[in-house]
């Protein structure tokens, strides 16, 4: 096995182009588990923790750009105001030790359907910035990034450089079901993002289909029928929203939960997070 240690982004891209089978390594919270358990023996590890620019984040032009090496701890501590949905999800990842190492970039690279970052990225309409030495930069909308269980639109010679999330134009919430309040892989999860100016409700479903996905019919329903200026949130509309969010999922029975449980939990989480977000929206409107 080779251990590649680029110190610049250009070196990293060159290494990946020359050795596309090299596995990128950031916090190691997924990759090292597979190596420790001999599930994976890649011909090379590509350590990206020395590429300083990947650890940078910035806010400007209506979006927050988060380098692929920014750990969850930083998302939680510094980005809660600008990308609250993602920050809430980051807050539920593992433990403090894991949040010190794990990254949103790594979550995207692993592309697990249970990854906590994915639902808020989908709900907020994030784009993933990827690059290769020979192909240059591409931006991939989160909704087009996840292709299958642990498969993404990333090409073999590409690396994830950053994720760009619109600065939250309205309230955002994330909810996750697990057996504990820490250290759990989601049984299922859900994110909602309100965009009052565009009259849009974004959604993201985690751990209840082969890939993270949006609940598009539920989003369309809200675009058609939500009265953004009304005094209350119509309970019948909330019920239909919950049902359509659950219907968008395609869960299976597995060790963490049954398909039936996941559908029920998604219905509940969708109604709950929408109500929380609506209450914030109403509060801001009044303020």
């Amino acid at each position, binding site marked *: 096995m080779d251990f590649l240690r680029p110190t610049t982004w250009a070196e990293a891209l060159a290494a990946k182009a020359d050795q596309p089978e090299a596995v990128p390594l950031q916090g190691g919270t997924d990759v090292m588990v597979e190596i420790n358990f001999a599930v994976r023996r890649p011909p090379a590890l590509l350590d990206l923790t020395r590429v300083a620019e990947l650890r940078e984040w910035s806010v400007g032009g209506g979006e927050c750009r988060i380098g692929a090496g920014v750990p969850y701890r930083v998302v939680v501590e510094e980005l809660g105001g600008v990308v609250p949905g993602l920050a809430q999800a980051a807050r539920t990842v593992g433990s403090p030790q894991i949040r010190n*190492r794990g990254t949103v970039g790594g979550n995207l690279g692993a592309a697990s359907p249970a990854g906590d970052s994915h639902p808020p990225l989908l709900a907020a309409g994030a784009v993933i910035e990827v690059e290769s030495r020979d192909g240059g930069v591409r931006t991939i909308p989160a909704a087009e990034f996840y292709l299958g269980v642990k498969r993404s639109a990333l090409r073999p010679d590409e690396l994830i450089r950053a994720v760009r999330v619109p600065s939250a134009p309205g309230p955002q919430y994330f909810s996750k079901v697990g057996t504990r309040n820490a*250290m759990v892989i989601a049984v299922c999860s859900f994110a909602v993002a309100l965009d009052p100016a565009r009259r849009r409700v974004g959604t993201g479903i985690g751990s209840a289909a082969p890939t993270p996905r949006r609940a598009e019919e539920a989003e369309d329903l809200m675009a058609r029928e939500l009265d953004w200026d009304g005094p209350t949130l119509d309970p019948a509309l909330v019920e239909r929203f919950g049902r359509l969010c659950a219907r968008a999922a395609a869960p299976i029975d597995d060790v963490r939960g049954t398909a039936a449980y996941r559908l029920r939990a998604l219905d509940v989480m969708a109604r709950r997070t929408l109500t929380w977000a609506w209450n914030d929206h109403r509060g801001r409107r009044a303020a």
Partner: protein
Amino acid sequence: MRVTFTVNGREESADGVWEGESLLYVLRERLGLPGSKNACEQGECGSCTVYLDGEPVCSCLVAAGQAEGRRVRTVEGLAEGDRLDPVQEAFVECGAVQCGFCTPGLLVQAHDLLERLPDPSDAEIREALAGNLCRCTGYEKILDAVRLAATKKGAAG
């Protein structure tokens, strides 16, 4: 490959390190520092917690090569000579140790908590220790120990 980094203030090197090897393995098997414990090897239990460049991490999930040139502080580096750190003293005084396997990770994690938050609430203690599992049912004593350590450090500071 050869890996060189600072451990508890001293520069150490290990030769013949396999590229997929963890920092935990290098510490325990190559550098003679068995304080950090090897249990789950998947970041679930926290018993391998060490400081890496000042941040607590699960050393089982750090590739040895990622530690190259960096600073590592293990449980062996908490005491100053024969003088235990207040966190260690508090664990002894409160009986927060049963089999002892989770103890090194808890000590490092609790040490970090008190460096950042000298007077943590119970909720903050629980949150900080959420990734450290004790299977001897010792959590109450551990919470007592962290509270006592905070008091000791406050009195000393």
